[in-house]
């Protein structure tokens, strides 16, 4: 399993960062990221992803795991399966205030596509696979997100 260990070391932070951006919770990011690699570890021998697509595959798994948790939390009306969003500390409060402001400007999918675009080694096709849209849909979504950001230059100051 040496190969998988390399994949784990190389992509752990990318998966964690993506989930953290989706959930805004380090607890959630901890658990979903661990769960994602656990599933990947189990599935790797039978169904290894094609070379070069490991990160997209992991992010898709992470997205599904996040969605599962989100669905479960939503379905259980009044329940708190999801923890409170990020708990601000002195170190990160500024970032999350900015992220909250960003969230008021950008719809969830536009935020997500930029979060994935942050990852420089993901192609449009990779991002499309994760988000379930076509590469042209990715470009369109990015374009709309940036258009929205352009109207709020204070967010990029």
């Amino acid at each position, binding site marked *: 399993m040496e190969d998988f*260990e390399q994949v784990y070391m190389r992509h752990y932070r990318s998966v964690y960062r993506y989930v953290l951006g989706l959930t805004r919770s380090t607890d959630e990011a*901890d658990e979903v990221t661990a769960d994602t690699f656990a599933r990947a570890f189990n599935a790797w021998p039978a169904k290894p992803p094609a070379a070069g697509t490991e990160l997209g595959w992991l992010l898709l798994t992470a997205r599904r795991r996040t969605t599962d948790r989100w669905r479960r939390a939503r379905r259980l009306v009044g329940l708190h399966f999801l923890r409170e969003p990020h708990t601000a500390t002195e170190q990160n409060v500024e970032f999350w205030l900015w992220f909250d402001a960003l969230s008021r400007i950008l719809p969830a999918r536009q935020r997500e596509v930029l979060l994935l675009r942050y990852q420089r080694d993901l192609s449009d096709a990779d991002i499309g696979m994760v988000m*379930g849209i076509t590469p042209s849909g990715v470009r369109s979504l990015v374009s709309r997100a940036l258009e929205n950001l352009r109207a709020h230059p204070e967010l990029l100051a």
Partner: protein
Amino acid sequence: MSQHDESELLERFRQRLSAIEAQVPEPPARDFARTGIRRRADDAEQRRVPALVALLASFVVLAVVLGPLLWGALPADRGASPSPAGDSAAPRPTLVAVPTQERPEPGTPQGCPAALAFGELVEHPEWGIALAADGQPGTDRVLWPHGFAGVWESDRLALVDGNGRAVAYVGDQVELGGGFIGNNSWLACGEIRVVAAASPSASPPPASTSPSPSNGPTLAPSSEPTAPPPSVGNIRDIPEGPLVGRSHHSAVWTGSEMIVWGGLPDGGEPLRQGIPIPDGAAYLPATDTWRPIPNGLLAARFGHSAVWTASEMIVWGGNAGHDGGILADGAAYDPATDTWRLISSGPAGRTLHTAVWTGTEMIVWGGVLASGEPRADGAAYDPATDTWRDLPPLPVEPRSAHSAVWTGDSMIVWGGDGPGPGNELDDGLLYDPTDQSGTRIAPDHLLRRAGHSAVWTGERMIVWGGTQGRPAAREPFSDGLAYDPSTGSWSMLNLVPSPGRFSHSAVWTGSEMLVWGGRTSVSGPASADGFAYDPEALHGCADLVDLPPVSDDSNTDSANEVAEIVFTAEGANDQLVRIRYTDPACRSHSLLGPYIEMLLEE
């Protein structure tokens, strides 16, 4: 915006987002070959266990002492106050109605009491599955989450979640998050963890996303829940196919397969931000498999309609999304040749309309125009001549996101969004195209909904799912109702629980209703799964039950053992409350009870 501008903006965004790196840890060291992976949270849980045990005992004591004061300070004269455990020999479950003003508000930190209860799950003749709390005499009634049920698996009674997955079994030692409301009624609104299974063979799959604190699971392959959720009662799961999750798509039944096409994937307010999907696939129940279909000649769209003419699927209208606007074109797909052909242009483009096939014509009705105006008129398309003719407005309120079925001689329209926000309709229309007459179906307050589905079984119209409430607060319905036009009466489906959804699709195969896709909230994920409902699979239990009377009283009851009691608490923020309870004779299919579901208007 030029590509250069985009690149620059993206780079500035990256720089701003890079502050997140301070919160992204390095990967914890793991030896995969020897030990597998253990969740970081599990490690933390294990470290917390000794302290947790002590804390839990304190929590339980505090919850017992303070719970009734904090959460269950219910008036002593409230008619629906729960009875203490074991003190009633009534043959039917005692209903519990929790006044909404005393109910925790969902979605807030205060929404769920923070206490934990430990104990053994036990079967209870009145309450389905109850909790014999550690150190407490008798058993506690548990108000289980919406969608949970008790299902017999051989000789074991399983507690299953809304996906039909076993969460725990009677006999298991569990930890239940939540708190007391009233006397001995535990609101199970926190996490549910199996601390110790009744027996090794009775260990459920890890349906909960939470780790077991006592075992510190390593997520070995054997514990991976790779098997699909089991079929329960009259519900069979449809396997996932090649399509991504979507809503506002179309589906038709060809006689052998269900063809799903178009729709809107996750996220966004549909009418303003959607990027529709141009693909489709067909599900074959006979083989329980999917096959993709070609994308065809039409632009991607959602909120369109589709009918099956006995040889072709005709798709018309809809919304092309952010830039494309409301569409007035259509095309026909022939599965025999796997090809598409365009049809002539129809009336003004519209979306969220309905279409039915009369045997000779496709009747398009209702929906909204590009201006956002809902309509009560329509048009009929004759594929033999490739021509359209206008239909006059019908004597019913304009609407969109409604349902329509063809009974063989009439079209039944039901529900939908009327003019103005938050205006779901609770009436319908029986339309006879031969003399263009329409008879209004009387409104029923319980059936107010939009984004639902409807199918015609040959005898009844089954309405399932849907939603109501302001867009931001919409929650899905998971109930089904049947309308018999010969008697003008409604009944309720005796369905096992399933996650509610709206803006999904449903078709009738002749023996089953196939439900697929849809949403559980406006901005949330769209489903890529579905289920088949077979009313004949109840094995002696009624597939339909009488609709309980409507009441604003919180003590609504019914003579039916198998029933969902639904009532509205008008005036209290226009809240809708539902209560279901167990039918002992049909318990293998019935819902646990009582439980509560609450829909809140913002």
